[in-house]
């Protein structure tokens, strides 16, 4: 009787351990953020980059329109790289590109836009980086595709040609 209980419990113990490890094997242990999110855009207050006027979510994002929110900064090297892609995407009239200037120096940011061109329909400031947190962002550069006040896609890191093609397909 005792042997039976012992063997059953040993068997149970090993099967549980096996299941746990087997389950764990399938999951990657590298953190991968959820990119395909259908979340409402957050409500936030910000300052317009050029006029300094106070703005909130509804001043910038309207229903039934497609927006691309790009978080950028003049000190961010990959932002420089993705900038020409944003300029080319801006030729597409179906999309409104909005810029969030992340923890930047205003003079340097203005110089950046003068030098490389301004693809943004509107730019607002995020001096403390707190608005980026409201959006669930990790840093710069980061881009959100928004339709009907919902985040459709999130691109972490600089944009590339494949992503631009994907965005063009999505907004068709």
């Amino acid at each position: 009787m005792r042997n039976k209980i012992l063997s059953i419990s040993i068997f149970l113990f090993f099967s549980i351990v096996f299941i746990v490890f087997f389950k764990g094997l399938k999951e990657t242990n590298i953190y991968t953020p959820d990119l395909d999110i259908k979340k409402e855009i957050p409500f936030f207050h910000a300052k317009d980059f050029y006029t300094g006027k106070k703005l909130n979510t509804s001043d910038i994002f309207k229903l039934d329109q497609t927006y691309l929110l790009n978080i950028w900064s003049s000190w961010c090297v990959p932002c420089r790289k993705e900038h020409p892609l944003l300029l080319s995407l801006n030729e597409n009239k179906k999309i409104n590109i909005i810029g969030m200037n992340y923890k930047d120096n205003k003079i340097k940011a203005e110089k950046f836009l003068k030098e490389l061109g301004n693809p943004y329909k509107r730019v607002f400031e995020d001096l403390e980086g707190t608005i980026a947190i409201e959006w669930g962002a990790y840093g710069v550069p980061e881009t959100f595709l928004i339709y009907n006040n919902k985040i459709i896609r999130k691109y972490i890191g600089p944009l590339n040609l494949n992503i631009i093609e994907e965005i063009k397909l999505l907004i068709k």
Partner: protein
Amino acid sequence: MKTLKIIIIIFFIYPTSNLKAEDLEMKNKITKNLRCLICQGQSVYDSDSEFANSLKIIVDKKIDEGLSEDQIYEFFKNKYGEWILYDPGLNKNTYILWLLPLLIFLAGGAIIYNSFIVKK
């Protein structure tokens, strides 16, 4: 009159400074429980990255707004998912993690009970 003045001053200063100390303690506790998602193996409290610094400002703001500790955790969980918390809650992905120690404890107890107490 002088003592009355002092009492009034103490009355006004004491509660606010006490509150601030409590807030700071709560902020430290919360930021120690939040994972810095762009760092390796560091909490928000330990990190000095741009991401962590912004998170600290948000925690400060939320405490000022009067949110409780759990509400603040819930806010970050909504934005970044369960991974941002060092102390994950019980859900379908973590139930084995929570139940396994209990199961092992019960199994051990059963073995001890069977082999020592029943024998006697």
